[in-house]
């Protein structure tokens, strides 16, 4: 049973404009040293998938820089490995056709050649806005065992705890997992659990290819509405109910809460300490993190390459962060190479890469509205 992967790097870019102004959602930094794409990519690699196409749209420089040759995921291969699939626009098309894709289905039209030329039996698709460590090999096994045509990985959640954006698809399925309907999420008065699509899907490659050609011929533009829903009853569409740890990043506030959840031991265990399923990321060769005399760090996660002289509590420090003497950092996410001077005070701050916070600054947000400092800002 062989499978190739397909990762959509830009779908959901619009949900965190603060972090995706200069990058794809796939390359949004998360959890001290990772980028969001590390999770779907590692999940695929851990299932033995050694050919992964990454569908890009725009702003993908940071993504290319992160992925490199793919060697940090063991995907620098002579055959297979990482294939970056940038938008394909020929020089002779008329201007009207030179549009970038706007939907998942149009994105798939753009990579028809990749799908056609694969030799693998299955295609596993994934987005980058969900943080989980899922056994894709088991999803594939179940897909085969249930003789499904389309398997959609789903998660039962309570929207009261997971603020959902409109681009989430909710799934209706019976107790055996047979999907009877898929539709966009609508906020309602009703409380309680709903089942949503994690946008991780398995299909037979040839079936997918055939359906894409058909959809293109009919001028369809929605994957869920025109491919999944139209075929319910004709094809076997199954929900794979994922029970493990899961975080959805759909806004700056949910990014903040998903990050803070990493301070819980169970979450770290479910994400990073699963046997034989590590999460890989780009190696940066940072030196060890140095705690200087007088440093005080409590309940925080810290990457390599930091130099800490001040106080850090309930925070997430990325590689190369510096926290000066007398500075207090609480409930913050400080991304790569953020430099905080002496005697500053930070609470509920998210700083993007290379932010410089000078001596004595006093910045505070709230967990529902974190104070965000864009890339390279000096304050």
């Amino acid at each position, binding site marked *: 049973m062989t499978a190739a992967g397909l990762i959509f790097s830009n779908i959901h870019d619009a949900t965190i404009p603060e972090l995706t102004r200069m990058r794809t959602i796939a390359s949004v930094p998360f959890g001290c040293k990772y980028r969001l794409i590390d999770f779907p990519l590692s999940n695929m690699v851990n299932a033995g998938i050694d050919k992964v196409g990454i569908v890009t749209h725009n702003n993908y420089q940071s993504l290319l820089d992160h992925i490199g040759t793919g060697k940090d995921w063991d995907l620098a291969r002579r055959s297979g490995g990482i294939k970056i699939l940038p938008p394909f626009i020929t020089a002779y098309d008329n201007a009207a056709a030179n549009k970038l894709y706007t939907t998942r289905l149009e994105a798939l039209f753009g990579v028809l050649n990749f799908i056609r030329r694969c030799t693998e039996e299955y295609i596993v698709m994934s987005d980058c806005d969900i943080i989980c460590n899922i056994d894709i090999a088991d999803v594939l096994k179940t897909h085969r065992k249930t003789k499904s045509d389309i398997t959609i990985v789903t998660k039962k959640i309570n929207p009261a705890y997971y603020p959902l954006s409109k681009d989430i698809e909710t799934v209706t399925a019976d107790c055996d997992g047979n999907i009877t309907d898929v539709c966009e999420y609508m906020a309602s008065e009703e409380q309680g659990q709903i089942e949503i699509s994690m946008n991780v899907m398995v299909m037979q490659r040839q079936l997918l290819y055939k359906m894409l050609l058909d959809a293109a011929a009919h001028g369809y533009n929605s994957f869920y509405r025109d491919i999944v829903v139209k075929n319910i009853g004709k094809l076997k569409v199954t929900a794979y109910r994922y029970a493990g740890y899961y975080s959805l990043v759909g806004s700056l506030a949910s990014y903040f809460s998903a990050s803070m959840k990493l301070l819980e031991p169970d979450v770290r265990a479910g994400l990073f300490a699963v046997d034989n399923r590590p999460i890989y990321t780009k190696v940066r060769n940072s030196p060890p993190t140095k705690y200087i005399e*007088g440093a005080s760090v409590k309940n925080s996660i*810290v990457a390599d390459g930091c130099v800490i002289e001040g106080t850090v509590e309930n925070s997430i420090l990325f590689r190369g962060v510096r926290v000066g003497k007398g500075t207090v950092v609480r409930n913050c996410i400080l991304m790569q190479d953020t430099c905080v001077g002496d005697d500053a005070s930070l609470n509920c701050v998210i700083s993007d890469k290379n932010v410089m916070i000078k001596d004595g600054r006093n910045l505070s947000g709230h967990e529902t509205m974190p104070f965000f400092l864009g890339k390279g800002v000096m304050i």
Partner: protein
Amino acid sequence: MVKKKECVAMLLAGGQGSRLYALTTKTAKPAVSFGGKYKIIDFPLSNCVNSGFDTVGVLTQYQPLVLNEYIGNGLPWDLDRTYGGVKILPPYQGHTRSDWYMGTANAIYQNLEFIERYDPEYVLILSGDHIYKMDYAKMLAYHKEKQADCTIAVIDVPIEEASRFGIMTTDEDARITKFAEKPKNPESTNASMGIYIFNADKLKKYLIADEADPESSKDFGKNIIPAMLAAKERMFAYPFEGYWKDVGTISSLWEANMDLLGKKPELELNDEAWRIYSRHYASSPQYVGSEAVIDNSLIIEGCEIEGTVKNSVIGSGVKIGRGATVIDSVIMEDAVIEEGATVVYSIVDSETVIGKGATVGEDRATASGIAVLGRGVRVADGDKIAAGAMVSVD
């Protein structure tokens, strides 16, 4: 197909490092962990790459498993090259002879064929037991400028320590006039760092001659260098200034680790211009618990610290439980210090487990020595390991 290289580096990594006792029962000295996320060999390898030398032969002999696995295809150091790169050179069975490496000179002699494949003008000889950052390209430029046959890197050591080293006496042009291996009454303070650049043809000539001498101990310091001096070859001392430490003993290994601590450390690893590379495996970020106290220490990714850590270097994946205390110690990767255990003035090798409430070592001020726990040792709950003790699995 092999491309010609101007200079080939040969890294002597076969030594047992018997003065590191429990730390080298299962591992060759160059593969001993250092600074939390490095191994000793990362320093000469990174120096090679940063100096622009892309062809490195690593001569292994003693307990090569960990070292071989660590070096692999050389990817972490960018030494996975189509032409050149890093190559492991173990002793081998030849058509007419097969021998273990009998000494540093013999080890290079047995691999002359490897060197000749690259047809180099120069050969750089390095050893895998020193911690330092050095630009070998500058040394090579010096070697060419002096039109030397052999250049030996030297460092100024305190006169009272000079009798531990090979000492060079030089004239005003830095030409070596005399070499004394561990002299009782040293004439100078120019100590050999064990780093040599030879003109390839001269090296070959002296290695072949030395091999033919049954009395020779087949060592660079004892045989090759004296023979070349006696023949009045052009030999120069290249003065090196900066941090350099031989980590061949327990106390020097401990000191070198401690030299990384502090705001202005003796050896700065946070150096964009001269990075030290090492092999990384996927590990999660380090977690520092609500009750943890960390003071003047280095901590690496993958650690979970719930206890107290002071003046220590903690390797990747180490777990330090609640109420546990680690002071003045070096803890290597994946060791576990369980709740309430105390580790003071010790070196704890990888995958060692120190049980609940156990005590290892003694306060530095009163201890008779550094306690050393070898790889994979398990200290039972509540046990006590004395200062200066040496514990290994077998």
